[in-house]
């Protein structure tokens, strides 16, 4: 476990709440509005942490455990990424299964916490969330398989670390397709347009926001922070695929990661200001498209 990788992880956890702010700011500027401050999420988190939680009488301990499990699992997933561009803090053969399973664990915990309230709105959101997630999971594996076959490595640390740089000239098309597919997954997994609209005000149309409708105070702060970390983790994933940084010095690598994260967040903002949300029944088709991209990448490597 290298120090630089841990330092990069800490940095990622600190700047994570910046990314939703960047996305919102980009969207505001592109649509001719001033928009909320980039640091808005930090203010919100600070405010929420100072409040007390309110719990519905219907709920059980599952409602309170959900946010904690979700945050821990997302942070644990980040441990498998080589954020310094070379090696991850944690790695073992096949740890991409652990990465995907951790995201699933976080989703399971949060969705059950939402359903614990007995609210039909939360049920609606939960149903949509697990539906989309069942299609997102195979797509994620297709992307990882492409990376695996391109680099010959079995761990995320290897797939995204040093061997990736050597793999790019050999497998540029496949890696590009996988990266693109990962960006679509970022939109789906983090409930952004065109899958979900974080700015909507109608509960009936929400996916992610409606699951956490009943959480409040510190619990809500944990969820918001956990979601920001998840966005950062996916942003880092996309960045690492497109910008192999093993040749850079440690500071340059860090700056490149930061730049990649901010560009990714801005890209999310661009997508959000340029298109509307898809109908819910169209989302699986979007995912199938992303899966097809990654699958073509995989086939190119299997010739």
């Amino acid at each position: 476990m290298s120090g630089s990788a841990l330092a990069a992880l800490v940095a990622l956890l600190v700047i994570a709440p910046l990314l939703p702010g960047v996305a919102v700011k980009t969207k505001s500027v592109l649509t001719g509005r001033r928009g909320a401050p980039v640091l808005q999420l930090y203010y919100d988190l600070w405010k929420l942490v100072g409040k007390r939680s309110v719990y519905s009488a219907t709920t059980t301990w599952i409602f309170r455990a959900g946010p904690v499990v979700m945050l821990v699992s997302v942070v644990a997933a980040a441990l498998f990424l080589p954020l310094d561009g070379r090696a991850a803090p944690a790695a073992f053969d096949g740890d991409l299964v652990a990465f995907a399973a951790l995201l699933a664990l976080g989703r399971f915990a949060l969705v059950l916490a939402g359903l614990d309230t007995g609210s039909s709105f939360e049920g609606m959101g939960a149903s949509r969330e697990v539906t989309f997630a069942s299609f997102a999971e195979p797509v994620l594996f297709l992307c990882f398989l492409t990376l695996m076959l391109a680099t010959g490595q079995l761990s995320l640390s290897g797939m995204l670390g040093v061997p990736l740089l050597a793999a790019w000239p050999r497998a540029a098309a496949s890696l590009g397709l996988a990266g693109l597919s990962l960006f679509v997954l970022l939109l789906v997994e983090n409930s952004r347009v065109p899958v979900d609209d974080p700015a909507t005000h109608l509960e009936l149309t929400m996916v992610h926001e409606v699951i956490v409708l009943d959480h409040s105070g510190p619990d809500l702060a944990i969820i918001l922070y956990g979601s920001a970390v998840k966005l950062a983790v996916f942003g880092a994933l996309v960045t690492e695929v497109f910008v192999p940084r093993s040749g850079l010095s440690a500071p340059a690598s860090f700056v490149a990661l930061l730049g990649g994260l901010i560009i990714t967040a801005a890209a999310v903002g661009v997508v959000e200001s340029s298109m509307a949300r898809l109908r819910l029944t169209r989302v699986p088709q979007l995912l199938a498209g992303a899966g097809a991209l990654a699958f073509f990448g995989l086939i190119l490597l299997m010739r």
Partner: protein
Amino acid sequence: MTLFVAGISLILLAGLTVAVFGRHPSFGQAAFRFLVGLGCALGAIPALAVLAGRGASDVRIAGAVPGGEWVFGIDALSAVFLVAIFVVGAACALYGVAYSGHDQGRRPVSGAHALVALLVAALALVVTARAVVPFLIAWEVMAVVGYLTIVFEPERAEVRRGGLLYLVATHTGTLALFALFAVWGNGAIDLTFASLAAHPPVSAAAIAVVLWLALVGFGVKAGIVPLHFWLPEAHAAAPSHISAIMSGLVIKMGIYGLMRVIVLLVSPPIWFGWVLLALGAISGILGVIWALAQHDLKRLLAFHSVENIGIILLGLGAGVLGVAYGHPVMATLGFAGAAFHALNHALFKSLLFLGAGSVAHATGTRDIERLGGLAKRMPRTATTFLIGSVAIVGLPPLNGFLSEWLVYRSLFQGGIITGGARFAVVAAVALALIGGLALACFVKVMAVVFLGLPRDTAAAEARESVPGITRPLAGLAGACIIIGLLPAFVLPSVFRAGSLLAGGLPPDMMPLIAAANAPVTAFVLALAAGIAVAWLVLRVLSRGRRARADVDTWACGYPLPPTARMQYTASSFAAPLLTLFRPLAGVSVKRTSHSFTTHVVDPVLAEFMLPGWRGVRHVADRIRRMQRGRISLQLAYVVAAVIVLLIYLVFRGGAT
């Protein structure tokens, strides 16, 4: 082996005791519990010893028995299944005593307990038999006793139907097994497994016949799609602890049989690996889609058994491909994953079935649309069911994650090597889809049964079950947690089974595989510790501010709180996924102005099996016309048969 024999004897004695003391149930049941517990504990010791790397001597019965010696032995493969049989068997037998308590005096409860003991003993003999004749005897005892335990409540039509389907299916499978061993044993010295292994089928055609017979014979038992049609009917009809044994253990005997055939065959052909992989993907995906559509808690769990058999087959298929293409690491990982998942599934599926039984016991219904809010009323059942759900979905830090990870790893290992085996990696995508859908399904079950508000008075008035029911649940949940948190102790054992199936692994490769144990253990422990620490930190930080916990659920601005009728139903929850999979799911939707329900029919059973059986019956009716019951006609048949035989012998020319 002495301990094993002692264990089996004690289990059988337990059955005998409870049956003999049927008039004094309190004594009989106390003795039954004690003897079954002791017998299972003793029987598990040699299995654990084998898994730890020690050998076990065989038991041989020579002399006046057919088919050569009767040999019983424990190797690493048997041991994995034996551990499952004794742990799950003990839990289900103990649970059964409390579960059938209210039937005392109305039904032959003591006899049913005795049958459970006999079933557990038969299962243990199936996986230890090393010769064809004792294997088939144990297999048939298991099948027939299984039938008798399923039809515990024969006055219910559903039970009679499920039992009959089971009986027909299992005997069709047995027929294939007789054919399998007849073909294979033809020409061998005797019918011990050692002789079969020394005399494998040579020609490609003979191997194909043997393997297809094994796939049918063992596939029916395992519930591989499309041979699964009997499984949900039978498993839902049986009493819950029987369902747990059926889904946890009995269907695993099909997997064990396939694995034993692979061991005996030594070098399975390439096509067999692809067939297993394809069947695994099909069973897994269809099983979970059908499960999503169910609203009967036990039928839903039964379809998940089909799904998990699919996951096991994916591991088996990867293993066979590894052997056939000459990649021992891939083979060992795949077989180890399959064996490990069989063990894990036995644990968490029996836990879930016993939990479903606890719910059915407390509420009187298995229809999840009538349940809800049971987490508050039945906290122990709810918590253990949650543990089982996390395990079956394959989430860390529990045991299901580890075995699925092994199956994935085997497929990945295939992906990064050159040669035909690398295409197997695509099966990982199917496994991921299965995982995602299983998560959706268990979110549905947990939420609709245990969370929210009760949808019916049955659920509202439910009470936690007695300790006799909740203790076995806690024991099985504990087993899932221990295996999940300490893979470093368990993985070497399953690798032993895997390398046995892979035909032995070069010794220098073992450390290569074992190298992953430590980081995985560190990972699951760190995850569990991380969750615990974060939970404590949050509790400590928010101690100063008292949270309000007495408000209504937010109704989005409406002044009235949400009621139970406004809750999302299981039908609504699963609707988006079922709409997408409608051609496969066999779902019919019923929509009225104020309700939305879905109903599912098993497409295989309804569209192929039942019409097929009608056809068979039609033909059989035709044939029956020959049988008029007139002696003169019968005599004419005999004479005709003799004449035909004589003509045949004359033309064959070998009569003299």
